[in-house]
């Protein structure tokens, strides 16, 4: 019987299994192939906090979701159309998200008594009729994988490791994807038996789809309209690291990272540690405080001092950031946010450190804050943070989050030659040198050790305007506090006008950071539903764009979705004395487009 092909605009797949099942690899292979065949793609990995959780346990489930389409893709997708569940625990923890009528591929072998019990199933859901809402394809992935790789002669354990490639092969067939890209990758990575076994498993999965009667149709997702150019897949942490490296080339500054391992920021340290050939130094410090301290020391010595961390680390760095504010040294402080407070949810995303970044230091201690909105955008956000730091001689906070950091998307590789340089001018002239004199951007001269005649002393005590000497003068203190605030406010002089995406009136959705894709997609869909809506996504959280108040005034309603309890809402109300409507979520997960869409439309009905 010939099988039919159905064309779809977009599909969301989630691969879920034990942490040892290789789901991240499976997902990233599917992603890469989809990008290569011309789809737009967005992905989100979701892995457990435990390094090696017990097999079959609910908390050991690792998932990878990807969304691919023949149209522009802004998020990794709300609810999966397809769920691949490698064991009962994976089914239990992910089934709730699967769309009604969605495809469930389950590895029947793993649904034995022991695993069912571990997942808390009294009866086998594949047999008890409880999955009637879904199109269920029970496939004995384990047995078929072992059969396919038997002739290679690997041990049982190694052979079992190939089952994710069987599943991948099957899903490749289901969506008419070529195997060649994954085979190329396998060839690069493995040799001999391991290559042979994985190749056989992949092909067996594909052929199973072709021949098994259960699968009567496959799907096609056509190429998307994508801007021509060279592309690669990139995660937020990689892009951020590349942005820091690029900032060093654009400025001519030596790069220096002081860091202490912390989830979900460590990958930036790992990535930069490999780039010594670009002259970038990395220092894994004894603690978070030493990490920022070393970065500050490097800034004093004339480097682009960078420190990377997450919320708990930021709490420890606060005092040293205050010193950077007082000494007015250019630094980039990266906070890859995660669920808090305290240790919170290390592997889950959240946007709850905004107020900590703004106000989490003693005294009047203002710093510019820049937020990245997508994995690829981390590159540009990092350059922007470095540019502000150098231009205004100030420590700058760069906010990312777990979702942006670990998520991946196809990324158009920029041309270095197209990126504007970051001008740096070190002070060299001893005549008339004053360490706390000011330029137009209220930056002060950067006079680095090694420069004859400019020897001077910095420190955390209040500085006398111009001379930089210690001063307890009351008027001077007030003047300097105001000056440091004015300097941060100056950053806004360099911002482009705010351009809302969408309608000129109605509901204005204001967001920041990693929620960009969900908010943009929700606003677009709301408009398709006939609602008047627009979207502003803030790159700069401090200072806010000068025209934001006027822009807000043009809309009847301002909706502020955030993954916290309303921190940006709080700021907007305080600054603009304007009613705004917070829409908050604190589940360690990103917004779904549908959630935001419903919220936008809800009030439209109320208003009507």
């Amino acid at each position, binding site marked *: 019987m010939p099988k039919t092909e159905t064309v779809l605009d977009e599909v969301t797949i989630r691969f879920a299994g034990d942490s040892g099942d290789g789901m991240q690899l499976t997902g990233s292979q599917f992603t*890469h192939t989809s990008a*290569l065949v*011309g789809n737009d793609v967005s992905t989100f990995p979701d892995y457990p906090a435990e390094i090696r959780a017990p097999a079959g346990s609910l908390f050991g489930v690792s998932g990878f979701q990807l969304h691919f389409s023949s149209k522009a893709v802004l998020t990794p997708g709300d609810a999966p159309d397809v769920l691949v569940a490698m064991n009962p625990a994976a089914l239990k923890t992910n089934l709730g998200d699967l769309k009604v009528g969605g495809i469930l591929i389950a590895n029947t072998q793993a649904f034995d008594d022991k695993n069912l019990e571990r997942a808390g199933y009294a009866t086998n859901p594949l047999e008890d009729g409880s999955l009637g809402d879904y199109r269920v394809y029970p496939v004995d992935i384990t047995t078929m994988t072992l059969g396919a790789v038997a002739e290679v002669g690997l041990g049982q354990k190694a052979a079992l490791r190939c089952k994710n490639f069987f599943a991948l092969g099957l899903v490749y067939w289901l969506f008419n994807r070529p195997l060649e890209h994954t085979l190329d*990758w396998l060839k690069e990575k493995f040799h001999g038996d391991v290559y042979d076994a994985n190749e056989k498993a992949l092909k067996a999965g594909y052929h199973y789809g072709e021949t098994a009667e259960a699968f009567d149709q496959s799907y096609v997702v056509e190429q998307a309209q994508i*801007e021509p*150019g*060279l*592309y*690669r897949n990139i995660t937020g942490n990689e892009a951020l690291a*590349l942005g820091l*490296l*690029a900032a060093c*080339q654009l*400025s*001519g*500054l030596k790069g*220096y990272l*002081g860091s202490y391992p912390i989830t979900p920021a460590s990958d930036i340290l790992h990535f930069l540690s490999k780039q*010594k050939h*670009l*002259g970038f130094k990395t*220092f894994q*410090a*004894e*603690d978070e*405080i030493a*990490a920022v*301290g*070393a*970065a500050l*020391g490097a*800034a*004093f*010595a*004339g*480097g682009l*001092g960078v420190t990377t961390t997450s919320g708990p680390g930021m709490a420890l760095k606060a*005092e*040293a950031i*205050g*010193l950077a504010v007082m000494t007015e040294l250019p630094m980039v402080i990266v906070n890859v946010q995660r669920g808090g407070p305290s240790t919170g949810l290390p592997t889950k995303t959240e946007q709850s450190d905004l107020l900590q970044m703004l106000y989490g230091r003693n005294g009047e201690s203002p710093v510019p804050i820049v937020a990245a909105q997508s994995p690829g955008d981390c590159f540009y956000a990092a350059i922007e943070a470095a540019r502000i730091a150098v231009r205004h001689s100030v420590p700058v906070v760069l906010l990312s989050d777990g979702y942006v950091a670990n998520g991946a998307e196809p990324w158009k*590789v*920029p*041309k*270095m*030659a197209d990126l504007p340089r970051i001008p*740096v*001018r*070190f002070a*060299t002239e001893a005549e008339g040198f004053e360490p706390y004199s000011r330029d137009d951007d209220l930056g002060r001269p950067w006079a680095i*050790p*090694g420069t*004859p005649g*400019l*020897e*001077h*002393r*910095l*420190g955390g005590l209040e500085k006398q305007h111009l001379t930089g000497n*210690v001063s307890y003068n009351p008027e001077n203190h007030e003047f300097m506090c105001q000056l440091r605030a004015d300097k941060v406010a100056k950053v806004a002089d360099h911002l482009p006008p705010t351009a809302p995406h969408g309608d000129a009136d109605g509901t204005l959705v204001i967001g920041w950071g990693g929620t960009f894709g969900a908010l943009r997609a929700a606003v677009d869909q709301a408009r398709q539903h006939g609602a008047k809506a627009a979207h502003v996504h803030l790159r700069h959280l401090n200072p806010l764009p000068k025209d934001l108040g006027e822009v807000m005034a043009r809309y009847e309603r301002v909706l502020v979705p955030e993954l916290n309890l309303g921190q940006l809402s709080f700021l907007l109300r305080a600054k603009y004395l304007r009613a705004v409507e917070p829409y908050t979520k604190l589940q360690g997960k990103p917004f779904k487009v549908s959630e935001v869409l419903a919220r936008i439309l809800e009030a439209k009905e109320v208003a009507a």
Partner: protein
Amino acid sequence: MTVYPNLQPTDPSGQTRKDFQTDQDVRWCPGCGDYSILANVQRTLPKLGIPRENVVFISGIGCSSRFPYYMGTYGMHSIHGRAPAIATGVKTLNPELSVWVITGDGDALSIGGNHLIHALRRNVDLNILLFNNKIYGLTKGQYSPTSEVGKRTKSTPYGSIDHPFNPVSVALGADASFVARVLDVDAKLMPVVLERAAAHGGASFVEILQNCSIFNDGAWADISDRKTKHATQLELQHGLPLLFDKGTKGIGLDNRMHPRVVDVEAEGLDKVLVHDETNPAMAYLLSRLTYPEFPTPMGVFLSIPRPTYDAELEAQMRHAGRKATGDGMADMQALLESGRTWEVR
């Protein structure tokens, strides 16, 4: 493309003590031991042959940490306990610089203990001068991590029940490669020790026993008294017997490796240990000698060559740099285009 200034360095041969002074009023209490340390450091620096602009003093918080304001070099009066971390950043970014850390017993051994031990362990080429006055001076007289048990202070009205640190033992325990001790008023030994600390490649740790004339006056009087110091101090000299009290006494060992005082005339010189700066075990043993049971050792306990963190980092940078073309923008572009890429037409 380089943005770094390339200027004619100061000729160090013409530098004098004055070049290392500033116009800032020195604000320590009268009689504070810090004055004499400052004078010794300012006298020593011109002898090191380092252009003034290449010298950086980083301090933490405390009385001692005002030091950088009085040095005509680059400097930073930073935050409590963090000077070794900041200094590590300065030194590893630019290994050409001569970087000094000024700290106190509270700064280095209490709030900053972690940074101190790690800077020593890594052997970053820093010169760390710890002014030990066994008290918190700036906060007006609380006991410190080097205060003796029973010490009555504002925060220990019933006497301290904290067992104190011995700074030299701590430094040795942290695997420091150069460890020395000197008294604030010892204008003869201090320049010698400072010069050696500066010359040592790697982290040099110098404990300076310092008198706080206000909150802990006379804390070191037992061993600093000129009239008795020949008996209360043991001057360490590499390769020479550990003698004190005008050569009449020496330090030896019993058969369980406990140190003991040897009567040279009665027992003979061969019972006296010979100081060996390259022996960490001996250095530790010496660090445990304290007055009044023993004379307090002064001078260099340990000096061993060990690769420095900053030099090793530079070596890695050079090694990795062989991959580079010399055109940073091109290398950056190549990195951006690395990995699995595809062309969309």
